[in-house]
C-alpha cells in the first residue's frame, strides 16, 4: 500500500461530486430508518430497511467509490501520471482499493448497522452482525467493481446491471443464484453471527467466507494485472 496513492485516491473520491452522492446515499438509508421506525412496526421495518441497505445502498456506495478512484483516470488516460513511477502496479491497485474500501465501510456498511440499531435498539448484537455481514459483502463488491473499472469504460453501467439484475431480481427469484451472490455471502455471515430464528439466506457460512476471499483477492489481482498492461495510445 502506498500512502500517497491512498491520499490522492481519497481526494479523487471526495473532491468530486461523487463524494456528495455517496454521503446522500448513506444519509438516505439512515433517514429512511428513522422515518420507518417512527411510522411502522419495528420488526417489519428492520427487515425492509436493512434489506434495502444490503441489496441497494451499500452495493451502490461500493460501485460509486470503486469506479471513482480508478475509472476516470483510466478513461482519460491520466492514470499514466501515476503509473510512470517506480511503484508496483499491484501496489497501485491495492492503494486504490483501500481508498474505495474505506468509503464503502464508512458510507455503505456502517449505515446498514446504524439503520438496524436505529430501528431496533434492543438488539445491538444483531445490528453489529449485520454490519459485519455488510462489511464482508462491501469488501467483495469494492474489489469486484474496481476490477470492472480497470477492465471497461462502462463499469458503472455493468456494475448497476450486476447489482439490480443479478443480485436484486435474479437473486430473489432463483435460489441457486445465492451461491453466486455477493450480497448473499454477506447475509450468511450476518446470520451466523446473530443466529436469527430464520436465516435470510441458505448459504453455508464456510462457503460464503471462502467465496468472498477468493473473489475479492482474485478481482484485486486482476486490477493490478490490468494496470501492468496499461497502454498509452495516441489519437493516431
Amino acid at each position: 500500500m502506498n500512502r500517497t496513492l491512498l491520499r490522492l485516491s481519497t481526494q479523487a473520491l471526495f473532491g468530486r461530486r461523487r463524494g456528495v452522492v455517496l454521503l446522500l446515499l448513506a444519509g438516505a438509508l439512515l433517514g429512511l430508518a428513522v422515518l420507518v421506525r417512527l411510522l411502522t412496526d419495528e420488526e417489519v421495518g428492520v427487515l425492509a430497511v436493512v434489506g434495502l441497505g444490503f441489496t441497494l445502498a451499500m452495493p451502490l456506495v461500493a460501485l460509486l467509490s470503486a469506479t471513482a478512484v480508478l475509472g476516470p483516470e483510466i478513461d482519460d488516460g491520466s492514470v499514466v501520471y501515476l503509473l510512470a513511477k517506480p511503484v508496483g502496479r499491484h501496489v497501485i491497485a491495492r492503494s486504490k482499493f483501500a481508498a474505495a474500501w474505506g468509503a464503502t465501510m464508512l458510507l455503505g456498511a456502517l449505515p446498514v448497522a446504524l439503520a438496524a440499531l436505529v430501528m431496533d435498539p434492543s438488539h445491538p448484537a444483531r445490528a453489529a452482525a449485520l454490519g459485519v455481514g455488510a462489511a464482508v459483502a462491501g469488501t467483495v463488491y469494492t474489489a469486484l467493481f474496481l476490477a470492472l473499472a480497470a477492465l471497461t469504460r462502462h463499469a458503472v453501467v455493468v456494475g448497476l446491471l450486476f447489482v439490480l439484475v443479478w443480485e436484486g431480481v435474479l437473486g430473489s427469484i432463483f435460489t441457486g443464484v445465492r451461491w453466486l451472490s455477493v450480497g448473499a455471502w454477506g447475509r450468511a455471515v450476518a446470520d451466523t453471527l446473530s443466529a436469527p430464528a430464520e436465516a435470510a439466506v441458505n448459504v453455508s457460512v464456510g462457503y460464503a467466507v471462502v467465496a468472498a476471499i477468493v473473489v475479492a483477492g482474485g478481482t484485486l489481482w486482476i486490477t493490478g494485472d490490468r494496470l501492468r498492461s496499461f497502454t498509452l495510445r495516441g489519437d493516431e
Partner: protein
Amino acid sequence: MSVLSLDATSRWYGNVVAVNGISMTVGPGVTGLLGPNGAGKTTIIALMSGFLAPSAGTVTLDGEPVWRHTDAYRTIGLVPERELSFGYLTGRQFVLANAELHGLADPGAATGRALDVVEMGEPADRRIGTYSKGMRQRVKLASALVHDPAVLLLDEPFNGVDPRQRLHLMTLLRRMGGEGRTVLFSSHILEEVEQVARQIEVVVSGRHAASGDFGRIRQLMTDRPVQYVVSADDDRRLAASLIAEPSVVAVALRATGGVDVSVSDFGAFAVRLPRVARERGIRIQELTPTDESLESVFAYLVGG
C-alpha cells in the same frame, strides 16, 4: 548519461501497423521526433516509456527492456500529451505527489526546485483546474523533472501553448539537453523542432524516414520539387516561357485552365516568375502551391 534504443521495433493493432521496423538510438542532448499527425510519434514515445509492448523488435533503456519494468521510471521523466485531469489538486500538491511516489528523501524540497525550474512557484498553490494550457504543460514538466531524470520524453509539448510560454519551454529543453540529459520531444511542426533540436528523427506513416542533423534534413526538404498552379491571361505562352527557366523542371497545361509547374529551386522561381511575366507581357492571375502540406514534405522524404 542514458541511451534509449529501438531495434527493428514494430507495433501493430490488429491489421493496422502503427510503427514499422524502426531502429533508432537516442542519446544525451535534445532530439526532435518529427512527423505529421498520425505518423506514429505517440506510439514511439509510448514504446520508449514502457507504456506499450513492441509487437516485434526490442525497446531498451541502457540495455534493459522498458516494458513492464517499473524501475525504469527512476531514470525516465515522461510528459504525455494527455491532459492533467487532477483539477482538484493544486499544482504543488500534484508535483509533491509525484515526488513522493518516486520515494525521494525530501519530496518537499524537490517539488520546490522543480516548480522553480518551470517558473511555476507562484501559481503552484492554485488548483490545476484554474490553469491555462501553458501552465498545465509546465506543471506536467515539473512533475516529470521532480526526480531529476536522466531521460526526458515529451509528447507534443508545445501544442496549444502560447508563444511566450512556448519560448520558455524551448529554452528549458535546450538547457536540459545541455546538462547532458537525453531529451526527446515529438512535434509535427518543423519550425518548433528547428528551434530546439539539432538531432532529428523523422517518422512518416509509422516508418523511419530520416535521421540525423537538422540542417541536412532541412536541406533535403527545401530542395525537393514543389508544385504550383499558375493561371495567366495566356497560359500556353507562360508555360513556354517558364520551361526555359533553370528553376523549373516541368510544366503542363491544365484542361480547365492554368499551368502546373514543378519547381526545383523555390527561391530562384520566386524571383524569376514576376520578371518573366513582365518581360513577356503576360498577366499572372493566380499562383497556388498545390503540395505545401507537411505531409507532402514527409512523403517526399520517404520516397527519397
